[in-house]
């Protein structure tokens, strides 16, 4: 596949700066027809900005692009689509309250009538093994199905270059396999694919060539099949990574006991929890996997106390707390860090000190007789900043001014610093760079070693396999039976996550 085909897209010396940060600096690479090309880099390495320029959402400051030898300067996504460039987004491009056909129509320049479009959606989705009902509301679809909508939207326009931004973050391993078969079929038909990811094994399995970005610059180009995952990771991060250290210790008595927990989702498109059972012992980390939207948010809300249930559904150290709110549960020893940092875990416009107070007041006794003990609160906030290496000008800085990784370190650190007996975190390293992610994982392991029961809900399988002792998966609001992590295969994990959710392998053209 490499070397023989004509160059489809060439990017030469592209630079794009935003106030205070250079997102891309003199980036050059080329993609050949039918090639699967990977853009590899950490969060914030400039991958997204680069593809947004190729898709016409952002104008480069300097540099040029050519498509099939001709100048290519898309001023808007419509022009990019007209030139045969299509993009599957990671987030933000579907409309929950509209149906599949309407969503597809919105991504096309000159869509046919809806009835005709619906039959074409059926036909193309059958052809590529991505079954879809055009009349369903997108809000009711699973994460994998939503991605199908995006892919079909692109395929209907017969693209020459398909850009995929982190497409597998919402899929089970089985669904990933099927997606890869579809992509290989497209590649065999001559469509070039620009594949953005930081998942190294996937890139090694799928891609013909890779361009590695670090801090906005191209640091290497290579054939990913000739490198080990570790070599790729070090090119991407620019330093040697130390995997978290574990101490093998026998877990203690049960600290968190969840029995028959059923909760209706507060969100119209959410997933209700059905009859969840689990126990977590002191000193143990339970990893909960699952594709986004299978009840993770609801589980965190039910454990943290934002949704209340029957008292005996959730027990901490043998005491029923299901009917108590978050502050009473904190008093009982349970702390929680939700996925959404800004607006849920932290109040964006309040300072770090105030944010520390909001969750730490109960356990750290920062409020005395109705008055806030500011000196103690500042000491607590400063301790979190210091212990968890939060990079901030000071504890008076507003939460929204911190970068995602730093705020995440602060949020997790704030909870872990309260000497909890039970810790519940959802997506603890989502959107966090590799170094910060490693330190957050280490902190969770250390807390477990110190005797806390830890529940980590995450969509990052590698993370769970790295830190968890036992593993289970949420699928459609149900929790699978936990299994020890040792000896689990990726296939078994995939089946726990719900298998292929009804997807089929692409039908090969006759």
């Amino acid at each position, binding site marked *: 596949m490499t070397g023989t085909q004509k160059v489809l897209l060439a990017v030469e010396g592209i630079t794009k700066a935003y106030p205070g940060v250079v997102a891309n600096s003199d980036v050059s690479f080329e993609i050949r027809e039918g090639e699967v090309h990977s853009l590899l880099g950490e969060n914030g390495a400039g991958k997204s*900005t680069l593809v*947004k320029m190729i898709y*016409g*959402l*952002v104008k480069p400051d300097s540099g040029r692009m050519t498509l099939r030898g001709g100048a290519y300067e898309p001023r*808007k*996504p*419509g022009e990019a*689509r007209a030139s045969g460039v299509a993009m599957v*987004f990671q987030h*933000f*491009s*579907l*409309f*929950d*309250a*509209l149906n599949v056909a*309407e969503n597809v*129509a*919105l*991504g096309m320049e000159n*869509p046919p009538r809806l009835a005709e479009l619906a039959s074409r959606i059926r036909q193309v989705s059958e052809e590529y093994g991505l079954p879809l009902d055009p009349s369903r*509301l997108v*809000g009711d679809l699973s994460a994998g199905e939503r991605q199908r909508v995006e892919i079909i939207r692109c395929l209907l326009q017969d693209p020459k270059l398909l850009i995929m931004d982190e497409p597998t973050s919402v899929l089970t391993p089985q669904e990933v396999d099927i997606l890869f078969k579809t992509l290989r079929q497209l590649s065999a038909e001559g469509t070039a694919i620009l594949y953005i990811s930081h998942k190294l094994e996937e890139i090694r399995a799928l891609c013909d060539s890779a361009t590695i970005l670090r801090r906005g610059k191209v640091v290497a180009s290579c054939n990913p099949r000739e490198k080990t995952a570790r070599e790729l990771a070090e090119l991407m991060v620019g330093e040697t990574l130390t995997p978290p250290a574990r101490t093998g210790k026998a877990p203690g008595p049960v600290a968190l006991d969840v029995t028959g927990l059923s909760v209706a989702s507060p969100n*119209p498109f959410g997933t209700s929890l059905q009859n969840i059972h689990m126990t977590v012992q002191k000193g143990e980390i339970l990893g909960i996997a699952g594709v986004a939207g299978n009840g993770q948010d609801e589980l965190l809300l039910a454990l943290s106390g934002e949704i209340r249930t029957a008292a005996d559904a959730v027990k901490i150290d043998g005491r029923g707390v299901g009917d108590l709110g978050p502050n009473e549960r904190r008093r009982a020893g349970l702390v929680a860090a939700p996925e959404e940092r800004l607006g849920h875990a932290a109040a964006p416009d309040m300072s770090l000190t105030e944010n520390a107070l909001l969750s730490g007041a109960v356990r750290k006794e920062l409020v005395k007789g109705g008055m806030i003990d500011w000196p103690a609160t500042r000491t607590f906030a400063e301790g979190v900043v210091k212990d968890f290496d939060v990079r901030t000008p000071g504890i008076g800085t507003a939460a929204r001014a911190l970068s995602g990784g730093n705020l995440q370190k602060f949020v997790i650190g704030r909870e872990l610093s309260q000497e909890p007996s039970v810790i519940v975190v959802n997506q603890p390293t989502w959107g966090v760079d590799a170094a910060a992610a490693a330190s957050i994982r280490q902190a969770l392991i250390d807390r477990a070693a110190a005797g806390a029961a830890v529940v980590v809900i995450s969509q990052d399988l590698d993370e769970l396999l790295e830190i968890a002792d036992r593993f289970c998966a949420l699928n459609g609001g149900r929790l699978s039976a936990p299994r020890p992590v040792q000896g689990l295969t990726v296939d078994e994990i995939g089946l726990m996550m719900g298998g292929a959710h009804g997807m089929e392998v692409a039908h090969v053209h006759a």
Partner: protein
Amino acid sequence: MDLSAINPAVLIASLMVSATPILLAAIGELVVEKSGVLNLGVEGMMITGAICGFAAAVETGSPVAGFIAAAVGASLLSLIFAVLTQYLLANQVATGLALTLFGLGFSAMIGQGYVGMKPPLTPDLRIPILSDIPVLGEILFRHDLMVYVSLALVAAVWAVLKYSRVGLILRAVGENHDAAHALGYKVIRIRILALMFGGACAGLGGAYLSLIRVPSWTQGMTAGAGWIALAIVVFASWKPWRVLLGAYLFGGITVLQLNLQAAGVKVPVQYLSMSPYLITILVLVIMSANRSRASLNAPASLGKSFHASY
């Protein structure tokens, strides 16, 4: 008390006239809210339309010129809101309230010279043949042009939102402005056009009050009609035909309670006066009682400022 003085046919005919200002303002606001913007300045735009229309009609002697001036005037006022909220990212609620206060004051200032004047008469259309149908002709086919324009607007808004590409894009922008932007739609431009349409409709509604319904100019003559229009849009779950129902219900009960007052019903006047507000809200609340389905129809980006982050 003499209820026999109330003629049902006349009652229905006059409820259509009574409901038209609110219907016009509400259908405009529905389009605005479907695009994801909450403009609380409907009252201010209505009263601005009322005085612009009145002044233009008096000066030119033509009601048509009056209605055009009303649409343009209120649309310009909504443009102020558009610039403040779409470009300068001002808070939509606060800006909308300010727009109402500004419109009330501004219209009072312009209107000083027009108090006590009579506007030129807007003729009723007697639609040939149809208007001669007994009873039905009297109810439906002897109104002025604007009554039919308002009904046509409801039908047009419904059809455009449901079937056309423009309507789909408008709904998409109101549903998820980040996604719409990522697909290359001009979120701010679409919202500004929607706001101007909403302003023009509110202006027509205001002018209908000052030129046909009342017809004269008094300060603050909209008397809360804009707020009722806003409430009707929400309780109608952003559905055009339910907006029509809500507006006609409100208009109908307004006319009915006036008739009851005139007939000397032994209910305190205050209760009768509040009844249109109470009953309209109550009926629409009951209709939209299924919360999950109502929220499905609500534009998910309603009231949120959009700022392209890249």
